[in-house]
């Protein structure tokens, strides 16, 4: 029940990204407003499968439920050079070959690209960044303290 309500909250706000909920009738546009990169709804759905294969749902939400595909789009749009954006869009185009495939097959595809692959490294880095900085993880898993109110410089590590 706890998890459910957490997930529900996350649908409302993907970490500062307001998701357009209104029905424009235009099914092809991505569901968040972007200024530079023209991701389509199909791109967004594919990204959803890719990020979910990187961080899948287990007994806790996976990347898709945390809207990390939208976060990746937002970061590629705002925090990368035109060169990076072009490489990313190209990489995403190629990844269409795994659309609808099983998570294992998608993982295999991504692994086969290798860590040197720019598309894969941006995708993975931004997915991890979004996950570690997500409200869900910071509130439920690795607790972020806004107001620690203390500093202890010699805490015994419990083994």
């Amino acid at each position, binding site marked *: 029940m706890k998890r459910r309500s957490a997930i529900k909250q996350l649908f409302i706000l993907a*970490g*500062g*990204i307001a998701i357009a909920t209104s029905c424009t009738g235009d099914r092809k546009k991505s569901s968040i407003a972007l200024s530079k990169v023209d991701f389509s709804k199909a791109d967004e759905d594919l990204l959803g499968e890719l990020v979910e*294969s*990187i*961080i*899948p749902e*287990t007994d*806790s939400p*996976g990347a898709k439920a945390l809207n990390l595909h939208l976060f990746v789009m*937002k*970061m590629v749009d*705002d*925090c*990368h*050079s035109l060169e990076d954006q072009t490489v990313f869009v190209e990489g995403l185009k190629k990844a269409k070959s795994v659309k609808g495939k099983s*998570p294992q097959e998608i*993982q295999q595809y*991504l*692994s086969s690209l290798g860590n040197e692959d720019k598309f894969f490294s941006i995708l*993975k880095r931004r997915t*991890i*960044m*979004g*996950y*570690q*900085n*997500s*409200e869900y*993880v*910071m509130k439920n*898993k*690795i607790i*972020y*303290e*806004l*107001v*620690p*109110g*203390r*500093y*202890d*410089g*010699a*805490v*015994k*590590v419990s*083994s």
Partner: protein
Amino acid sequence: MAFLNIDSQKDRTYDAIVVGSGISGGWSAKELCERGLKTLVLERGRDVQHIKDYPTTNMYPWEFEHRNEMPYQIKQDNPVVSKCYAFHEDAAHFFVKDKEHPYIQEKPFDWIRGYQVGGKSLLWARQTQRWSDFDFEGPARDSFAVDWPIRYADLKPWYDHVERFAGIAGDKDGLPELPDGEFLPGYPLNVVEKYFKQAVEKKYTNRKVISARCAHISQPQPIHIQQGRTQCQNRTLCQRGCPFGGYFSSNASTLPWAAKTGNLTLRPDSVVHSILYDEQKGRAIGVRVIDRNTKEEIDFYAKVIFVNAAAINTNLILLNSISNRFPNGLGNDSDTLGKYVAFHNYSARIYAEYEGLLDYKVEGRNPAGGAYIPRFRNLHTQETDYLRGYAAGFGAYRSSHSDTSGLGEDLKNSLLNPKLGNWGVGSHMMGETIPKASNYVALDVDKKDEWGIPLLKISIDYDENDEKMKKDYLDTMEEMFVNVGFTNIRRNDSWQAPGLDIHEMGGVRMGLDPKTSMLNKWNQLHAVPNVFVTDGAAMTSTSTQNPSLTYMAFSARSVDFAVSELRKQNI
């Protein structure tokens, strides 16, 4: 605060004008208002009120659109300010963007500015180490710049005064090179910093490792409660503005205190063009302002003027205050105005790991940042082939890491179960640089900003002394790191441009002789006795200590003198 009616000259006349509302201007204003002077504070930027105008202060990481990372285009458009360690989504609104306020870099200089009420006091790193006679006697002993017209004893009561009010956490370490003060309890070193301290002090008798002294309320006293401030909550999100008033800023402390006297008028959006000089009277009569928004030119008048615009802008204002008597800038009989600008050499760091004490970790956050190593080089006698020395920061941290090599459930497990690694340790140098006539700021003859004020040219560089000192810092720290058993030692020689230290000083230096300096021992222009400069511009030399606390002490001391001179009708 009074409502501004600028129709008549009488309504634009005050007892005192303070130019700038940052760390030194806030102190000048507080001290003037407390002594009953109707005081106008002119701030070129927008108003920022304590708490109310800290929009990001209570935001969680996930609430930032880009999780605190600055967007690519903003970084491209602002190459200078983007180099600053604190320029992120949570505090970007307190920094000047490069294009808003251009300047001319004859040599690379990263000029980091905060144009708003409170200035950079909202953003500073809050390190507050007193200067000592090893600093004030430096130029005379080592034959550079000019002799300081004061010694530590002149400033000591004023350090006491400002420390009690601001709230300074620190230990009494009994070091003549870093005098003790009126401290709140210091923030203890962590277990590895303590280990380093013990190992270093055992091996090297003249080297000390102490808890860094900082402007944080570790234990509030009645004077802090009266300011509406309370205990630091160890957030270390200070650059956003602190809702607890846990660290000292003009916004949380001196400005509201000054306002409470009923004597303060604060006028934001007031870009100071120049100081008005009356040749008949032989004194300054006021300040010319260009309204930031309307571009309207308005003159304000006062008996005494404190220039606290931050080091380089104070130079700019004096250089732009031209009269028949002072064709080269106000009070510039010595032709030293704008020259002998110096800074702190922050261009080297060193990192390592420690594989011991792995049964310990830290919890919470340390607002002091860790340890401080006071200057030990060339302290009592000249030992090296370069002049002066460096202080150093030192910190140990132990964070958890996740293996991010996998994908899928393995990766997720790893991310949710980070493992404690070795301790990480790091140090950065804070080197004294030698003020020289060739390191200067000057007005451009053609280019002006949108308020009609000449653009500033900055021509400041490192020299051979700085290079030698940096090499010694890196060699010495590396040797210390090896000796205490640190591993994986990495030297980082950034050669970052001057300016990024944000400790630019000088250009309006103090001195005994009006022929070779701008200000006397009271921070008073030798040639214009009712104008005082008590910010970084006044510094004759730079020492190795963070300078803000010294600006505060100079401001309070100088106001005390100015008001007594006013009462005696000497100015």
